[in-house]
């Protein structure tokens, strides 16, 4: 099976047909995708700005409990994102903004793993108001920067074809 065969398979799938044939499905998924993106970014702001030190008023332990909320928002956007992709696979796959967006999501994922395995235990022991160490701050800044880039590239998909 070639790559184009695979893309065609997705386009012909039930999801792909649904995205193209039901007129309200595309805008419905777009709205869910926007809400997921805001929820994801809001949760990240609380965690990352606390780690960076701008929002040290937020208790660190409490901020870390928002991780499942962020993951749930990401899952919603992964799901709605897959729906867009099946609706028009050739357009997305060969789209420059989409390709860069996916690359940044992979980087954000690696950054999140680094946070989880490298910093999470240390951070959860921080007292209220106590400053995080430098590597944690670098991860937090990278996280916000990457997600701003992901949002911008997503919005640029229709303009970079």
């Amino acid at each position: 099976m070639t790559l184009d065969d695979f893309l065609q398979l997705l386009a012909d799938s039930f999801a792909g047909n649904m995205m193209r044939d039901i007129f309200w499905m595309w805008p419905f998924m777009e709205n869910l995708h926007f809400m997921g993106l805001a929820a994801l970014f809001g949760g990240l702001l609380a965690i990352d700005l606390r780690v960076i030190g701008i929002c040290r008023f937020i208790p660190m332990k409490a901020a870390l409990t928002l991780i499942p909320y962020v993951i749930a928002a990401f899952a919603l956007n992964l799901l709605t994102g897959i729906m867009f992709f099946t609706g028009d696979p050739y357009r997305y796959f060969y789209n420059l903004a989409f390709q860069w967006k996916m690359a940044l999501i992979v980087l954000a994922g690696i950054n999140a793993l680094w946070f989880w395995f490298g910093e999470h235990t240390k951070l959860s022991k921080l007292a209220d108001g106590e400053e995080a160490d430098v590597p944690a701050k670098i991860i937090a800044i990278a996280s916000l920067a990457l997600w701003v880039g992901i949002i911008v590239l997503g919005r640029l998909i229709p303009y970079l074809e």
Partner: protein
Amino acid sequence: MDDFLLSIEESALGVYIQEDPWGFAIALSVHAVGMAMALGVVMLVNFRILGVVKQVPVLSHTALFGTAWLGFIINLLSGIALYASHATEYTYQWVFILKLTLLAIGGYLMKLTMEAVAANGPAGKIQLMSFFCISCWIGAVITGRLMAYF
């Protein structure tokens, strides 16, 4: 009225956003980032009040309100730029009018909700206000997105 709207579209800003190949795309991208900042914080605090997330103390979220306001200002400016490029169109779009109305109500309800939290008001009343607040904000996103369809 139409002369006035046309003069907005023909202003330097309106022409730039409309005619530069990147003008509209950049303004839209900036608008999406501002939305993530403002709506992200508003969602988080209302979800906390409504019990979707539970750990962060409600009043701690005020630490994030500076970021939310920054997002709002970014969207006010990028919104003005987007509006200037299509003033004759957007002014008569009912989803756009609805969006602005919902944002005004949603913003005011956010203020009232946080004031009630700070004053230790009745939980039921706070949750009801919070529910209407987040509904308005979500409605504003939906109507904003639908501007591309109506």
